[in-house]
């Protein structure tokens, strides 16, 4: 009887193992089909200027899988995409090449850009500028407004360079800073300059939108967290002139007046003033400049020691290139490959 068990078991087991081995030879035709597309002139230009030297992919054609279905948005106009690709190359990539060396750019610059034509609007009328995912991919939105931005006057920006920075380029420097921080974290000292003033999502509310410079922040968004503050410090520093920067410092250290301290005169912002500066009296000076300068010094040290980049040299290169673009010295439409 035991033998019968064994024989039957062996047969059953062998069936399990062998019975399905008889297979037709593999089909030589692959079932993996990629969307095949012939390269157009812009694709070729991108290959020569982005893909081959830096392994950066620019997705200027709409792809459902890259987009965020939360929002209604549209593809970017081709002529705007071509100009934007030139701008990012000239104002960001080439700048980092110049200041940090090609190896630096190749190693750290984000590997994917996705362009869309409109902003991502929320149901409250506000919208998102570019966003970044995991330090690899940057979404640049609102590309179809590029002609308006460059000719000046879009959303009240009379200076095209300032508008270009605000809507697109500063975002790239900002997100790039995050990538650098992910590679080598920024010094802990930075988080200790204004350790109790970070307010996460409340940064955009009315209560934090007036005295941010006096509290030691370059922008309202910098109040979000130390990480965003660091990225704002670097990106705003390198995209603005020393004159603008000094103006910000002057605002941050201005004299406190009765218009600040008197609830009757400071109707809209008295709460913000009193909660931020409970002991300040008219005639004294705000001291936000010291905080801002302390942060900038830490940013300077970090960039110098970690990546051997001098932020003043970086700023000079950014501003020089920016003015070259604004004066029309850079051809933003040519698809010739050098």
């Amino acid at each position, binding site marked *: *009887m035991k033998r*019968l*068990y064994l024989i*039957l*078991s062996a*047969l*059953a087991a062998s*069936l*399990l193992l062998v*019975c*399905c081995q*008889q297979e*037709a030879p593999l*089909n030589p*035709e692959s*079932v*993996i*089909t990629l*969307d095949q*597309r*012939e390269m*157009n002139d812009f694709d070729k230009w991108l290959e020569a200027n982005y893909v081959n030297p830096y392994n950066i992919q620019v997705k*200027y*054609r*709409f*792809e*459902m*899988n890259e987009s965020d279905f939360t*929002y*209604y*948005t*549209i*593809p*970017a*106009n*081709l002529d*705007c*995409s071509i100009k934007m690709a030139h701008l990012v190359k000239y104002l960001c990539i080439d700048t980092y090449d110049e200041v940090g060396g090609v190896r630096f750019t190749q190693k750290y610059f984000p590997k994917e850009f996705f362009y869309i*034509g*409109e*902003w991502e*609007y*929320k*149901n409250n*009328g*506000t*919208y998102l500028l570019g966003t970044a995912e995991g330090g690899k991919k940057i979404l640049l939105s609102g*590309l*179809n*407004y590029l002609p308006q931005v460059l000719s000046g006057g879009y*959303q009240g920006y009379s200076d095209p360079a300032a508008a270009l920075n605000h809507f697109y380029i500063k975002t790239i420097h900002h997100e790039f800073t995050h990538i650098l921080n992910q590679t080598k974290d920024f010094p802990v000292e930075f988080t200790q300059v204004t350790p109790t003033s970070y307010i996460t999502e409340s940064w955009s509310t009315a209560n934090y939108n007036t005295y941010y410079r006096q509290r030691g922040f370059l922008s309202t968004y910098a109040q979000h967290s130390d990480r965003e503050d660091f990225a704002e410090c670097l990106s705003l520093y390198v995209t603005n002139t020393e004159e603008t920067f000094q103006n910000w410092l002057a605002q941050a250290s201005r004299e406190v007046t009765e218009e600040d301290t008197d609830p009757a005169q400071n109707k809209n912002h008295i709460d913000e003033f009193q909660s931020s500066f409970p002991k300040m009296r008219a005639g004294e000076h705000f001291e936000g400049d010291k905080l801002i300068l302390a942060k900038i010094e830490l940013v300077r040290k970090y960039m110098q020691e970690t990546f051997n980049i001098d932020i003043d040299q970086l700023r000079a290169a950014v501003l020089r290139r920016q003015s070259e673009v604004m004066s029309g010295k850079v051809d933003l439409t040519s698809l010739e490959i050098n």
Partner: protein
Amino acid sequence: MKRTIPILLAAAFLGGIFSGCVQDEAPVFDKSASLRVKDAMDNTQRILVAAEYGWKMYYYPHPDLDYGGYLFTLKFTDKEVEAWSDLFPTSSKSLYRMTSDNGPVLSFDTGNEVLHYFATPSGSGKNLYGESGLYQAHKGDFEFLIMKATPEEIILKGKRSGNILQMYPLSESPESFIQKTTKNYEDIFVSSYTGTINGEPATGYLDLSKRWITLTLSSESHAGEDDASAKVPYLYTEYGILFHDPVTVGGLTIDALEWDNDTQSLVSRSGAPVAVNLKGQLPPGWRSYNDLLGDYDLLFNDSGESWWSAPRHANISLVQDEYKKTMLMTGVNDHYTIKLTYDMSSGHMAMMGQIIGEYGVNSVYWAPLFARKGSGNGMTYSGWRSTDYGMQLYVDDEASAEAGTTVIKFESGPNPSATQPITGFGLLMQTPSGASGGWMTGNAYADWFPFGYRGYAVFWVSMTKK
């Protein structure tokens, strides 16, 4: 127990023999899914490009068809698509591609002013189409699942709206086809129709901005019947209007109507099973755009006088601006003209608040006003730097018949509240920062005053064509 084990083993053994080796189930398809998707894409692209004159597309945005339908004409090359519609005077070119992210998909994947209009959102500011507040756009699609593709017909399904779209090959150039469509869109400006459907009294109503039509059998014998009235979205096409799907009114099925411009009527197409004849009914006071242009004697009060005193006269003219849409009032002051909008379906005009010029660094608003009697002979105003408030101008048929010429009356249009109707307009400045720069009152501004009178504001009464 002893028995069960061999039985189970035997069952496994036999089961193995009978089921384990059923080999090579006959495949349902002769190719893999991905290859079939690729074939579908290649095939569709071949069909799209092959149509000599291109295609017409029946496009319906929004899952609830809230905006009615739009006819696009499209011409494809291997890489590019050129698109026309009755909403835009010129065509727009962009790239397109076949992709397989969700089955075979036709995607218009770079910007195209014509094709992407219904998908373009806006925030609190104006977008490139001048629209605002549409964060979900018009819920239009620009990516489509390919449901069917033959040289005679292509059926697409909008990825976001789920709407079904049809495409048919053209037998004439896309430009000339869209011209015919656009002409019907422009010619059909009347909303109300009366006439017959299959010999029975009937009415039609076109919601011109939403592109929906309502057909109703109006005789009392049909009162209360469920299908005495039907409503359906439509689009403008080369002969008239085509319904999104056939509607049934009193058991009669209608799917399209032809436009007869001579009689201003919507009629059944030749060969259609149900005879329809609905004649456009012009609203009272309706005048054509051209009828309204010309020279007028204007009656008004100005703010230099008591507003209830005898009105003054002035010569003004209405001259053509954007044809059938806007006109300019000249003769008010050398520094500015005032823009009026014309509504083709009512034949009325509107004068809304507007920026009419610059005074130094300030911009000057032609600001809508509400005025009331103040103390003594004075008056008190409220005025708004707003383009949302204004006055309606309409032809008074009775007064016109009496005068033997066109007489236009002014009345309050959109206004801030029921107790503050708009009675006139005044000159109000705005500083570069957007704050009020004050009324242009006082002699310093005298050369800006309307009609050269003392006041910076006017209260309209009427105007009579010369």
